[in-house]
């Protein structure tokens, strides 16, 4: 596999077969909470994608450059979460100051992202992958993070449509609200099972 091809494959896999929400169960809270409207779903996913890439971009060098050489891999969790929390806050503040329109459309989602497992998850999972595969480098990690974000976006936007449909349905009273949303999510993730092996097959 050439580099470009492997990057594409990493990207597609992150969207389809390893979809963070629908197959890996990461970032379920915003998936269920902010997917009511397509607009909010889009905003949230864009913010998540941005933070995912940024966080990976920062944590990867910290991990490989500082923690591992000093035998401090065990500090991964604490360092990563601190970095993410700080980054998110910084981005929020910067947006508010310098790009108010962008802040108004995306910034409001940022505080929610600190406690989003998908972001921390992606920074850790790319390292896990790198450990298993020596050809997997910084570039892959970034592409993977971006793909994970786009996968999140795809799932969110798809699901926002479903929820729009649900609004007008006569759902039995005891299932109204979250339960039916979860059943709908169940059917949505069901459809993603069909992708298994697709990316490997496509990329040879």
């Amino acid at each position: 596999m050439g580099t470009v091809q492997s990057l594409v494959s990493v990207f597609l896999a992150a969207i389809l077969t390893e979809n963070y929400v629908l197959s890996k169960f990461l970032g379920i809270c915003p998936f269920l909470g902010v997917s009511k409207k397509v607009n909010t779903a889009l905003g949230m996913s864009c913010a998540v994608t941005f933070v995912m890439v940024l966080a990976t971009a920062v944590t990867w060098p910290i991990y490989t450059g500082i923690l591992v050489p000093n035998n401090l891999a065990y500090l991964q969790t604490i360092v990563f979460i601190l970095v993410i929390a700080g980054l998110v806050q910084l981005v929020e503040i910067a947006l508010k100051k310098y790009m108010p329109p962008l802040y108004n459309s995306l910034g409001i989602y940022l505080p929610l992202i600190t406690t989003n497992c998908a972001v921390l998850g992606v920074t850790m999972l790319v390292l896990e992958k790198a450990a298993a595969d020596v050809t997997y480098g910084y570039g892959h990690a970034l592409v993977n993070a971006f793909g994970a974000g786009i996968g999140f976006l795809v799932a969110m936007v798809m699901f926002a449509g479903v929820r729009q449909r649900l609004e007008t349905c006569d759902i039995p009273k005891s299932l109204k609200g979250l339960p039916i949303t979860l059943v709908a999510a169940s059917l949505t993730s069901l459809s993603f099972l069909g992708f298994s092996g697709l990316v490997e097959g496509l990329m040879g």
Partner: protein
Amino acid sequence: MNSNMYVSASPHLRSGISTTSIMRDVVIALLPSVVAGSIIFGVRALLIVALTVASCVVSEYISRKVMKRNNTIGDLSAVVTGVLLGLNYPVGINPVMAVFGGVVAIVVVKQMFGGIGQNFVNPALAARIILLVSFPTDMTTWASPFYYTQGAVDAVTSATPLAQNAAGTFSGSYLDLFLGNVGGCIGETCALAILVGGIYLIARKVISPIIPVTYIATVFVLAFVMGQDPLFHVLSGGVMLGAFFMATDYTTSPITSKGKVIFAMGCGLMTMLIRVYANLPEGVSFSIVLMNILVPHIENLTRPKAFGEIKKKIKGDK
């Protein structure tokens, strides 16, 4: 003038078409496939279809009762779901699983969302996929056609043309495929019977030809582009059944004409991608269910321009 008049808003005249009459047409259109399935796979096929129909109808009846809602089995939609689900099983399926599938289709996929017209994925297909992932062995053990004439009591297994194709061992002819003389689900093998039913539906204006034609054309073209045998792909593995009966399900396909085209093209694309590249040889079910999920977006994007509509932006919309 002793009693009160009926008062209603206009119009006071209605066409004779009702949900029941539409569903009745679909059932009629499915009969050739049921007959073909029974000829190819024996009486057991007929029994399986009957079983799923019963399971669906009873599930519908009970779930409506439990939810304290009006009885809707009269609209025959549960029968359609039942027949289609039955046609989507391999003939050797364990009857308990067949019944389980019916319950899942009606209760989980349809009634939990409010009943007819409100489910967002195709009940028969979703149930089929759930069964497929739950009992992959049973659901992929295919009987060879006319096994019962060879004196075998149990279904003699054979692979589907698609699996054979993947393994490079398919040896049948197009005629076999067209007439259904191959392994596969009860209703998917005989393209002829499906075509007869499909044409009946189109002639009766129950379905518009947009979806089936676009779907099949997309599969044909993509197969060609991917270097596969286009005719083989169209005739094998449920594309025909899916295109005429499942992708056209009113509830789970777009109602706009442009939307129908996009939907069917999406189905075709997904089908071929999954067939050719993914682990499962089975693309039709997944592709239709996937596209079902996208229907609200497709509809939003393809809303026809109203008569004399002037392009304008309503502030803060979306």
